[in-house]
């Protein structure tokens, strides 16, 4: 019984951890959005306050997570870091590079539509000279991202399916072990449906507790791990995001479904062990 409960908790923990990681990261979305930037190159001579203003406006766009204005001086420093020894290009103290706005998208908006939204907002701006957004490579990159996400969600579905199969097997074994007790009760006039209903109600409560504890432990582990490892923050995302309302609802739904499935598994196990019991 203890081993069964521990096994159930472990599987629940695994499933909920997978789910939380997928929820935060959106699969490959967060990693890709961390690597990908849209660059809006401004015309030479655009004042810094105008560049900062454009970056502020861009940051308000829905798909945008972050928009930072880089002055021509910042651009020159970055250039020299990348290509040292080319200081001579700056003749008569005049900076040949323009300022630019570096734009990062939200992980969930990492799509053709998101990129198009940003481009269409920047194109009419007269101070913008050029928009660099990946060009022809992007559609195939985004297609690969969708495939990667589908694969990752399939993995989650597989974990859930294995969890359900194990649950059903556990419940069938449990119900079979109860045959003498159930016969005792049925022989004494207790309706089989009443016993099944009581077991199912018990399984709902126990399943809910297991799912809740597994979720809390998983959240705590995610907070801990993402606090220690930058890699986890970059790929999965900051655990604090779980407190957002948009993440709380799916987590609650997951808890509800995990509870319902455990209750239903109990009922299915009962029906398998006592097919004719009413």
């Amino acid at each position: 019984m203890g081993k069964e409960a521990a096994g159930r908790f472990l599987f629940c923990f695994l499933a909920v951890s997978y789910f939380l990681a997928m929820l935060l990261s959106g699969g490959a979305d967060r990693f890709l959005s961390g690597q990908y930037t849209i660059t809006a190159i401004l015309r030479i001579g655009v004042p810094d306050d105008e560049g900062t203003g454009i970056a502020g406006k861009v940051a308000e766009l829905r798909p945008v997570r972050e928009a930072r204005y880089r002055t021509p001086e910042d651009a020159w420093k970055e250039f020299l870091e990348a290509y040292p020894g080319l200081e001579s290009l700056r003749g008569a103290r005049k900076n040949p590079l323009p300022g630019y706005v570096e734009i990062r998208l939200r992980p969930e908006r990492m799509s053709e539509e998101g990129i198009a939204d940003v481009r269409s907002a920047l194109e009419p701006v007269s101070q913008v000279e050029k928009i660099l957004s990946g060009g022809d490579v992007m559609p195939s990159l985004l297609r690969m991202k969708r495939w990667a996400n589908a694969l990752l969600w399939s993995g989650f579905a597989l974990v859930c399916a294995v969890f359900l199969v194990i649950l059903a097997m556990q419940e069938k074994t449990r119900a079979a072990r109860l045959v003498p007790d159930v016969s005792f009760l049925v022989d004494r006039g207790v309706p089989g449906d009443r016993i099944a209903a009581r077991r199912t109600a018990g399984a709902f409560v126990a399943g809910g507790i297991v799912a809740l504890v597994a979720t809390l432990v998983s959240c705590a582990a995610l907070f801990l791990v993402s606090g220690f490892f930058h890699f986890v923050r970059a790929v999965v995302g900051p655990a604090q995001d779980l407190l957002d309302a948009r993440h709380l609802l799916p987590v609650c739904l997951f808890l509800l479904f995990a509870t319902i499935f455990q209750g239903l598994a109990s009922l299915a196990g009962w029906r398998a062990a006592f097919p004719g019991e009413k």
Partner: protein
Amino acid sequence: MIEAFRVGAVSRGETLWEGLDLAAGDGEMWIVTGPPSCGKTLLLHILRGERRPDSGDVHVAGESLYRGSPEHNRRFRASSGVVPESLPAGQGRAVVDLFRLSAFAAGGVSTEEIKGRISELLPLVGLSGAEDVEVSSLSVSERARIALVVELFRSPRYLFLDRLLENAGKEWADRLGGLLRALAREDRTILMMERQLPDIWQAAKVPSPLSSGPFFLYRLGSPGPERKSEAEGPPLPAGPLSETTGGVE
């Protein structure tokens, strides 16, 4: 009242018996004896409403157990207790777990009440303080006696006992007889199936169609005013437990 009318049973294509009649009223105690494999347990199942007879019918309180409503059958089973012939070893189970199961069947019994009633019932069968003992470690006799008090926990109106005396052992025939007779005095109907009547029990063989089959039918105790005088008479030895059954209720 349990009434069997012209009951017959077929097993493995052979007629075991047919045309059996029996009427067991409130407060009556009946013993059916017969050789091994003659169908005593089958008869008990039929009288309990668990197995439809191949012919005839069984009525309780005027309604058929098999042709009446399923709810009537269920109510009858809820109001009856049964000690089976073979008692499961109950691996990993303590005696108290059996009482808890019985409490679940009874419904609405508090934990305190369970404890209280266990402490009243176990001494009746000489097993005081055995509530935490594992069932698998008990002897056949102890398990039979435990099975009896687990049934008495629910205060059933009808008691069906399959080879209880044989399982409990000769040394317990006297005490159990006193206990059962006291229960019969409290208007419970008791039906026992045994291979033979214990030597120390004296009972009149009742001429009945049942006795014309493989069985012999004995009646111990009778309802109404005569019951008391019979109880004080010779058929059953006055058991030391007959006074203690107040705790059973």
